[in-house]
């Protein structure tokens, strides 16, 4: 890896922040010459890092730009596989598109595509996702689960549980899941998840879980029609969030729930999902491609479909947009 010296250097600097570390000590820890260290420090400064140099004291990190590059994530990652291979772009049409390419080229499970900005962020059925630069988390996780195609939709619910737990751990915000996997705070959307799958009848080649989170977005970033239905973690918490920390927390939670799922199946995920869902027990309307269904949201079935109690009995809903009013 070409950038490993720089990653290591940054890691050492972050670990010692706000203290100084001598050039010799740094070169010993990173395992390269002091000249090489100088060069990499220059490069980091170029990317917006402020590194103070003081004779006899050495170097210290003063300011880190808010980036979600691999070297910024590395010090925070606590996962075994998720996020251990990262493809990072400042700007890309869509992290989903890149992830598809990478998966076809053989990306390992847990590989992640991350961008600071998406110019054609993908939503469901050709819809767009508004992803202004450096304000959110726009990433796509590649999975190769050893499960049947019919079970694969369970992973979209699993993803919402993992992301919900990660965000909650970092921010403490009251974040709820709307079926199947939107995340809402006070009824407004803060995160969307789009899962795409390539496979054959009896085998999944790969799945891509696309996650878009409005983190430091402020309402002036949005067109008028989005302001009523969207929110961000910064708006809700009243403060700026460090995105790399958030990503690391989300990847850790995702890896844990995924491992739990592979070990013991959907049951545990299902109950976690039901605990985090805001709509159970409420009267909702499901807008399905086959028409409207109104009734009380009861629970999930074993595939992750939403069971709605109506006058005609309990109906499993597989595809729908859900509306409900908080009373």
């Amino acid at each position: 890896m070409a950038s490993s010296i720089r990653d290591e250097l940054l890691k050492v600097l972050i670990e010692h922040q706000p203290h100084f570390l001598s050039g010799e000590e740094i070169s010993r820890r990173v395992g390269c010459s002091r000249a090489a260290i100088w060069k990499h420090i220059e490069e980091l400064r170029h990317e917006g890092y402020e590194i103070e140099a003081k004779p006899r004291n050495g170097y210290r990190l003063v300011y880190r730009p808010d980036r979600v590059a691999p070297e910024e994530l590395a010090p925070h990652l606590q996962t075994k596989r998720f996020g251990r291979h990262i493809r990072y772009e400042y700007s890309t049409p869509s992290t989903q598109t890149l992830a598809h390419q990478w998966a076809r080229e053989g990306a390992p499970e847990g590989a992640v595509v991350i961008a600071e900005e998406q110019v054609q962020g993908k939503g469901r059925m050709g819809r767009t996702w508004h992803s202004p630069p450096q304000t959110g988390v726009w990433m796509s996780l590649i999975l190769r689960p050893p499960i049947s195609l019919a079970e694969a939709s369970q992973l979209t619910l699993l993803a919402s549980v993992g992301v919900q737990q990660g965000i909650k751990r970092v921010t403490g915000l009251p974040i709820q899941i709307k079926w199947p996997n939107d995340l809402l705070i006070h009824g407004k959307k803060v995160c969307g998840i789009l899962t795409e799958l390539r496979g054959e009848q009896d085998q999944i080649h790969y799945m891509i879980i696309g996650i878009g989170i409005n983190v430091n977005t402020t309402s002036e970033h949005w067109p008028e029609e989005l302001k009523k239905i969207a929110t961000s973690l910064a708006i809700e918490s009243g403060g700026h969030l460090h995105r790399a920390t958030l990503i690391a927390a989300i990847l850790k939670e995702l890896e844990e729930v995924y491992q739990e799922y592979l070990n013991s199946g959907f049951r545990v995920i299902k109950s976690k999902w039901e605990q985090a869902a805001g709509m159970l027990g409420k009267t909702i309307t499901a807008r399905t491609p086959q028409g409207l269904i109104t009734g009380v949201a009861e629970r999930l079935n074993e595939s992750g479909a939403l069971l709605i109690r109506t006058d005609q009995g309990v109906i499993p809903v597989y595809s729908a947009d859900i509306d409900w009013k908080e009373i």
Partner: protein
Amino acid sequence: MAFKMHEIRELIRLIDESQIEEFKIDNEGAKLVIKKATGRATLVTPAPETAPAAALTPAPAAEPVKPAAPAPQAAPQEAKAEAPAQDAALDETLHKIVSPMVGTFYRAPAPDADPYVKEGDRVDEKTVVCIVEAMKLMNEIEAEVRGTIVKVLVENGQLVEYGQPLFLVKTD
């Protein structure tokens, strides 16, 4: 190829959750019949050329015996539209692309986009023919055979069942 244990478990679960009362599938000679009333699953190997393997096609007439009166419930033009589709569905030489899961069938990547394939289109193994969506999982279905699309069996936006035929393909 016979059925794998996890596939059978999966099928039982899916049918249990659905409103399907009876389910038959013919997988390259191995037949599986699941009936809800008795809750029994039976696995039968190579069947003599009797029952067609058209699992889940809209109510095929059980016996080829002609009733004296015209079909009672279906409107005439609807029946006419069904007839060729069924003939084609019963044509054993055509390959069926079936849905791998319960979900909504989409012919195009977006509402205003062109369909992935139309009748008469050439496809190969890797051609994406449609999307089946459930729980916001977009499953791009590949043809898995080389040939020509003869018939699209379901409507855009229709809910499809596990194993339901979606396309008929005349293979090369």
